[in-house]
């Protein structure tokens, strides 16, 4: 059975897996944004701490995803089998590019523009929201793009710990030694990744033009 025939025959389950997959990605990205953005902003003025935090995040990134899922299973509260463990692991991966690009994006805003904003009498909060963040937006969005593409890919591994998603087909195909079933998981994942990336890319361009 070809992969597209498999998809057609199992369309109810395919739909369910796509929803699970998107759910995992959306939840992890939401958490990663909620942590990465404010921490990134807070680190802008603390160069030493910034190096340290980005260093730790870099190390986290090098842990193989399958291992990280495994490590998290015995951890109380966040661990165990299922989606919540997967979301924690995916968030950890997604935080780094978001945090790093938030820092870099803000630091690289033209200092004369920031100084003139201060000189005009903007409060630090106004400088951040009206000047630094809008001008850092393209870099920040690039980080979100990288994080989401990675999340969509790595979320396939979440099936290994019972979190569902399109990875289910990939693991099933591996078990059945059936490439067509593997493709039935991998191709929709690639499709989602391309769609999300080009959507965010379009958004990034339109923000950059302003």
């Amino acid at each position, binding site marked *: 059975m070809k992969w597209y025939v498999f998809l057609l025959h199992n369309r109810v389950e395919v739909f369910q897996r796509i929803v699970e997959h998107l759910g995992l990605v959306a939840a992890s990205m939401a958490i990663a944004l909620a942590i990465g953005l404010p921490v990134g902003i807070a680190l802008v003025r603390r160069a030493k701490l910034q190096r340290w935090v980005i260093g730790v995040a870099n190390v986290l990134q090098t842990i193989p995803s399958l291992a990280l899922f495994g490590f998290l299973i015995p951890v109380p509260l966040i661990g165990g089998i299922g989606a919540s463990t997967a979301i924690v692991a995916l968030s950890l991966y997604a935080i780094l590019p978001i945090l790093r690009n938030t820092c870099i994006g803000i630091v690289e805003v033209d200092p004369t*523009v920031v*100084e*003139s*904003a201060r*000189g*005009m*009498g*903007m409060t630090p909060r106004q400088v951040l929201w009206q000047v630094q963040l809008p*001008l850092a937006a393209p870099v920040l969005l690039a980080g979100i793009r990288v994080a989401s593409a990675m999340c969509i890919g790595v979320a396939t591994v979440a099936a290994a710990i019972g979190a569902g998603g399109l990875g289910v087909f990939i693991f099933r195909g591996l078990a059945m030694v059936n490439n067509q079933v593997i493709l039935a998981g991998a191709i929709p994942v690639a499709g989602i990744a391309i769609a999300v990336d080009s959507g965010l890319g379009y958004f990034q361009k339109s923000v950059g033009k302003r």
Partner: protein
Amino acid sequence: MTSPTGSLQDGYALAFQNASYRLPSGGTLISNLNLRVARGETLILLGRSGSGKTTTLKLINRLLDASEGEILIAGKPIRSLDPIELRRGIGYVIQDAGLFPHWTVERNIGVVPRLNGWPEEKIKARVREMLTLVGLPPEEFAERRPSSLSGGQKQRVGVARALASDPPILLMDEPFGALDPMTRADLQKEFRTLAARLRKTIVFVTHDVREALYLGTRIAVLDQGRLVGVYTPSEFLKASELEIHAFVASLHSGAADEGAQ
């Protein structure tokens, strides 16, 4: 920052009293500065790079805080004022204009009135008035982005932005420094007319002697963070201090170069 009142003992808009500025690392950028700026005059801060001109300027709007001494605006120590409020009452123009690249010209010019909570209608009208004042037709320029403006136009917008909330004091940090000579000459000429008309108290930083002589009511010469002296343009040309001689010499050599061309 309040409007001039009769109750003030001195007629100075701005005064430095033994003001010093030291870096946290220990270097002294300004030492013991005593300087008074009269209401409505254009005081030039003249010096080489690193002489402390820009630092002096930033002490006035508290982008930097004096390590010692006092700076008074209309008789009040600025230390006692909220820096945010203080800055909203002082116009500030820098080299390369420092315009907000993500905003239209209109939004750029309206920034301080908006921070001060003016109603939108009033801001719009004021922006139009300011654009006309600096010689940019509003219908042509209001909606444009800074990236589509020439250097001279950006500087005009910078001046319009600084004047928008009608501050009594204007700080200008080499505003025409990055412009080509022709554009610079045009803007200097227009600015001189504008300054005479608006009667703002202006502190103007430059390293260009001719600009200083052309625009200044008085010229304060700084060298290595110290005030060498304050001169009217004619006193400046006659002054005997070595530092001034160097400046005047540079002026003559510059003039000779131009004559030769």
